[in-house]
């Protein structure tokens, strides 16, 4: 099974992007939580949950990558090392995929205005199942994530069409870019697409940061 997709020169850069994206996500999440505390509106609690899940997923992914790269690069890989890397990687990838899918499902539920505990528990179940399926074929995870993000992008497009503000455009741009990165990750076997996808994904999170800074500058 193909485990590591990063070209050697990109190992570590991808983890840095993931850590920075995690920090941006938790900043956006924290502001959503502040609005929830101030307004009591549950949708901002769900938005906080979605970004907190992204934070955890990127952190899991970054730690997994760093551990696996260290095992592979700092010693001559033996059979034992390769087996250890495999365990570390599979566990990390599973949690990353589960957390990211849960986040995208929460965002899609918000965008489609789906409410109720029963439907949310069903979505959590699907996240668990797709994360398992993603272990056998990474493309499955990225196809499902792209499909969910497609509905999120549609919502943000509708929001921008209605509001026509710079902030709404920035959020739309961010999610279009993140959606595009997941579409590219479907072809993760190609190392250059892996690199390009990471740059694109990070650009998306940077747009979310710019939006937050624009809001704070008011």
């Amino acid at each position, binding site marked *: 099974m193909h485990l590591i997709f990063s070209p050697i020169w990109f190992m570590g850069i991808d983890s840095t992007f993931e850590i920075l994206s995690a920090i941006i996500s938790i900043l956006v999440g924290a*502001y*959503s939580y*502040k*609005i929830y505390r*101030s*307004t009591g509106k549950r*949708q*901002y609690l769900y*938005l906080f949950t979605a970004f907190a899940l992204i934070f955890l997923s990127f952190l899991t992914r970054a730690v997994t990558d760093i551990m696996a790269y260290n095992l592979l690069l700092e010693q001559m890989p033996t059979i034992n090392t390769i087996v250890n890397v495999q365990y570390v990687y599979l566990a990390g990838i599973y949690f990353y995929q589960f957390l990211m899918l849960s986040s995208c499902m929460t965002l899609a539920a*918000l*965008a489609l205005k789906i409410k109720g505990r029963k439907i949310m528990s069903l979505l959590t179940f699907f996240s668990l199942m797709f994360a398992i399926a993603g272990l056998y074929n990474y493309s499955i995870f990225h196809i499902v994530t792209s499909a969910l993000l497609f509905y999120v992008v549609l*919502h*943000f497009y*509708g*929001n921008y069409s*209605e*509001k026509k*503000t710079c*902030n*709404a455009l*920035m*959020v739309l741009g961010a999610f279009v870019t993140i959606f595009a990165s997941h579409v590219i990750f479907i072809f993760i076997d190609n190392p250059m697409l892996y690199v390009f996808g990471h740059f694109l994904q990070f650009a998306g999170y940077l747009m979310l940061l710019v*939006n*937050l800074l*624009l*809001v*704070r500058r*008011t």
Partner: protein
Amino acid sequence: MNKRREKKEVVYDMLEALWASKSGLKPTHLIYKSNISHVRLKKHIDELLEKGLVKEGSSDGKPVYLITEKGVGFLKEYERMRKFVDSFGI
């Protein structure tokens, strides 16, 4: 028909009207500018005075309401939140 504004929106409109006026607003002007009833004004202004977001003053011997620094801070934070909320549209 307009939906009834939430309490926070009414308070925001009142503070925005006071902020725009600089020299303060008489109660009748505040009612007109923030589009609320006299009963609602009384209810909200008491709360704003208690929280220190608004203070009482006088102009030409007549009572006026003025926005405080704390009120301006609240107004700015509310505006930030509104921008963030609008950018996500959820």
